[in-house]
């Protein structure tokens, strides 16, 4: 169970002044896949970076069991898989070298790393391009290698921030399928997306953010399916913008 207590994060934007990107978020996120949605600037990426421990909260806590994201840096990252649209892979390395590098940083012996790499290679179909330099791979192939990288350590907490950004329809569908395969009994998976269909495909639960606050949270199924879901989400996100 991932717990977010009274989480605040503000920053200073020279154009807009103080921006309260995350403004008092309280959430209990159970194991399973939770989609995070919101308009641009709603605070999704800031929230996910706080959860990953890459940003320090101004106030509040992010806890996973007895670990605190802000205080237990290295131990937190032992249990973390983080992938954002902005996360790039070293272009001159091959996927195999990258995965072995991650294994070495986890401190696993070589045979264990190799076994884990082999498992992920099969799971995400990396075989055909395993020894090609990442610079020569397509965006979809790179993102699959990136997903394999985040899953190599079997993390309890998996944070995926718009991983399908920039992918074509086919590659996006393959990646969504791969994310569905990332489910594990004790794993908390936060999946940020702008596409309701993706949320419907991968997530059990949905959190809607509006101006740094939680606008709605609950089971995806509660909002309906297909076009109904998209409409319900749009309605909830637009509700706060109309003003009194």
């Amino acid at each position, binding site marked *: 169970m991932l717990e977010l207590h009274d989480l605040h994060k503000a920053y200073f934007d020279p154009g807009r002044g103080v921006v309260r990107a995350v403004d008092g978020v309280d959430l209990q996120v159970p194991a399973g896949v939770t989609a995070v949605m919101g308009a641009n600037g709603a605070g999704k990426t800031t929230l996910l970076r706080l959860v990953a421990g890459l940003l320090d909260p101004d106030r509040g806590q992010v806890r996973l069991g007895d670990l605190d994201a802000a205080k237990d840096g290295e131990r937190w990252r032992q249990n973390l898989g983080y992938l954002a649209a902005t996360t790039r892979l070293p*272009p001159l390395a091959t996927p195999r070298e990258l995965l072995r590098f991650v294994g070495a940083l986890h401190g696993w012996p070589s045979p264990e790393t190799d076994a884990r790499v082999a498992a992920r290679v099969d799971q995400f179909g990396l075989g055909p391009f395993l020894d090609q330099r990442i610079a020569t791979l397509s965006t979809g192939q790179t993102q699959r290698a990136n997903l394999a990288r985040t899953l190599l350590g079997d993390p309890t907490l998996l944070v995926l921030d718009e991983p399908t950004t920039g992918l074509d329809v086919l590659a996006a569908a393959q990646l969504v399928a791969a994310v569905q395969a990332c489910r594990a009994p004790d794993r908390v998976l936060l999946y940020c997306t702008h596409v309701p269909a993706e949320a419907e495909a991968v997530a059990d639960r949905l959190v809607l953010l509006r101006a740094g606050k939680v606008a709605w949270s609950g089971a995806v199924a509660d909002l309906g399916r297909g076009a109904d879901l998209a409409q319900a989400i749009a309605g909830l996100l637009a509700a706060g913008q109309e003003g009194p």
Partner: protein
Amino acid sequence: MIDLRSPVWTIFRKDGRELLRDRRALFINLLLPMLLYPVLLLFAVQVAQVTQVQPRQRPQLGLVGAPSTLRDRLEQAAQRTLPQLDGSPAVHAPLDATRALFEVRDLGADATQLGALAAELDWRSGDPKPGQAWKARVVASLRDRKLVQAVVMPAVSARTAPLLIVQDSAHGELFDVSGPVDRALARWRRDLVERELTRRGQPLALLDPIAVHTVGAATLAEAVRTHAAPMLPFVVLVLAVAAAMAPAVDLVAGERDRGTLEMLLSLPVRRRDLVIGKLLVVLASAVVAVVLNLLSLALTAGLLAGQLPALGSESPLAGILEVGLPALGLALVVLLPVVALVAAAGVALSGYAQSVKEAQMYLTPLMLVVTFTGLVAVVPHARPSLALDLIPVAGTLLALREALQSPSVPWLHLTVASLANAAAALVLVGWCAQMFDREAFRYPRLVRAGWGRFARFRRGEALPDGPEALLVFAVAVAGMTLGGGLLAEAPPWLLVTLPLVAFVALPALGHAWLGAYPLPALGVRWPGWAWLGAGVALAPVAVALSLGLGWLQAHLVDVHALEQAGAPVEKAVRALDDAGGIALQLLCLAVLPAVCEELLCRGTLLVGISRSLGRGWGVVLSALLFALLHQSPLRLAPQAMLGVVLAVMTLRSRSIAPAAVAHAGHNALLVVAHAQGWLPDG
């Protein structure tokens, strides 16, 4: 034992592999310089050869009525036959090509006073007397820059003939001309003495009472080593620094710009290991670059030395060959901590920067600092000392030069200097590790409030805090003190106004600009007419309080002693009292101090201290610092009291304008009272 599976080595292998695979960067950073040395040195040699083939045009010397003995010596010095000019007006044509003119003239009575004549005459613009046409000609030629030097000798055969040399000291050919002339005159002087000795039947040996023979005991190699040794450590340092900069920028700021650092930072690796791993890559690439560069330099120098022995023996490159591989090895080992320090500084700055572009901007001053610190190694007569050893870069380079020059290696200095550099490098590594763990490093464009782009690693709202405000105050005090000392000889009005503007107002405004603090938050806002009126009304009350406190102080402490301790500014205020008109006094002593000091004391200081310690302390401390700023023990108590009143007024009105008006009014009333003689001295 090095654990090759440790995170440090894992990072090292990964980053090193990427560096090696980046062929273009590899070629530009490592191979291209190696290829450039032979090309550039060959070019330099070609230029030198061409210059030798076409020696500079030797200067023409012209003679007018010179004796044949002088003529012989001049011809020897000039290595050619000289034209004999006849001194008539027709001499103008050949004079055009003449750079030095010897004129033997019957100067008549002037001859004995030639020195006085020289001192009196303005040869550049002088108007010669009638009958001295030669002088007009010389003056005109000098003025037109045709003639460089004119040597005028009296025709009379006095024992000691006064000799007048008029020369264009600003002429570019002066040394080409004066050299042969000086040599010729020296030989001629000796000729004259020899002739006189012969005439008197004295031995010529009288001219050379001592005979000096110099024998060089050092081998050429030793001499070259002595002269080349200062260069070697410096060359190695410059090469290493240049080689370390590109990877330092690329492995931190470059990775962040490319988006690959986010992946690395989300992995379970300690920040310290990350820093050390990257640092080792930078270090390794610097060492490899230095070795390859020196190898290329040595090979090129060897090649050229074979072709051009003269160049080879004088060149520092040949010195590198002469010093030999063991010395080079020592240099590399000893310089390793220095390069580590520079690499760590490069990594630190690269991490601190927001982008690769900004990192490159930071690295230029870093290179300048390192290079200039390293120049200590080429300062003549500089010797290592324990105090110098502790200075990063400089200590090691000096000790290394000593090691290369003298027969015994100064192990103590080498060790202490290396430890000092290693310690400094470790401190930087620690700082980098802390920085790598901060969000501002991971997302540098996420600007926290406060000191915005420069103090991104701090939390806070868009207002300064106490330490910042105190820093600005320290800058002001240091500036006022130094400025007062430097401007001691300046006019009083400048001594009063310049420090105020430069060290009080500008630091306050600069601090607000750097921190992106809104000026209204610092009290620069319109307070309304009522508050301005209150400021005006406060002025006479403040004067009464000031005078009262001054009177009380005069009875409690030795005012005269306090006056003696007054700062230079205080003295200038008094000088201004005496020298300036009332308008200047009001501007320099009332208006300007009010505006500048209110910006600092009721703007930056009051806001900053209030934010950190609360309003009460803000009022008290800002008032005390305001009093201390004046550096006048005599006015300490009245100023502190005034500071309290003005601070309260600023907090109430939320503007520094009423305080500025009251401050200016207070000062103006005192100035007027003083000018009218209503105030007692002191």
